[in-house]
């Protein structure tokens, strides 16, 4: 199904946040990661179960240098 990940339309088979991270090659155990789906934060504890639907907009972020 098609999802919008960090502003880019992407074709994926993942149906949960955890699967999506795995499919993108991101270690879900990595520190300092955060995920939002359709403008709402999905807590880390819910990544395994939080469902994704076609057309969802996903933000995957982490801290960078800043002022």
């Amino acid at each position, binding site marked *: 199904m098609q999802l919008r990940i960090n502003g880019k339309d992407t074709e994926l088979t993942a149906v949960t946040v955890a699967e999506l991270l795995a499919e*993108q090659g991101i270690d879900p155990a990595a520190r*300092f990661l*955060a995920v*939002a789906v359709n403008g709402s934060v999905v807590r880390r504890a819910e990544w395994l179960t939080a469902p994704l639907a076609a057309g969802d907009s996903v933000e995957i972020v982490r*801290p*960078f*240098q800043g002022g």
Partner: protein
Amino acid sequence: MADPLVIAGTSFTSRLIAGSARFPNQQVMLDALEASGAEMVTASIRRISLEGYSGSLIDLLGDKYRILPNTAGCVTARDAILTAELAREALETNWVKLELIGDRELLYPDVEQLVHAADELVRKGFVVLPYCNEDPVSCQKLADVGCAAVMPLGSLIGSGMGIVNPAAIELICSRSPVPVVLDAGIGTASDAAQAMELGCDAVMIDTAIAKAHDPVRMGAAMRAAVEGGRLARLAGRIPKQRFAEPSSPQLGLVGS
């Protein structure tokens, strides 16, 4: 002499909050932060790169410094609030340096949206430190909605122009019910000292350290300036006057 900075019940020995951006490389950043004595360091929250996912510099800083995430670049309250919520999840902190930009060239705060977003974030349990105009009314409104400190600008972000309106900063410091952290515009050590002398409780410095010819030495200079300025403020400066007043005794002058 213990003189801690206290924000939202948390004590800091250092009155310098440092940025982590724009350093020539990671080692210089680490050394400059060390030299600055800062205990709290700001970070941004950004989308990870899906192509080249790699470790973040926060991996290096996170265990040594308190990380203060910002909402830099956000132009709507909605985006700033989501960024703060993502930061809370990523960094396990409810502190946020709230930035809401009203003009992408000037990076001047959008006060209307800032107050709105601050109000909502405070209700959601955040400790909000807003980057704001050097205007006592804006600062009061932000304190009224529950911000833990206010961060008025000395001059435009990254400009190095120092404190262009010291009278306004002094006025804010004299009236603010919450700590005042001078943010933006500091160019060199004397600017940081001046902020403290005007009554600011702390200063936030990024570019002036990171882009100095020798960032590590400038980190040390800023530390000394903040400490010197704070001591001068506590000591109480002499009033200015228009005429000379001799400092040596007038009696017993040779040849009189």
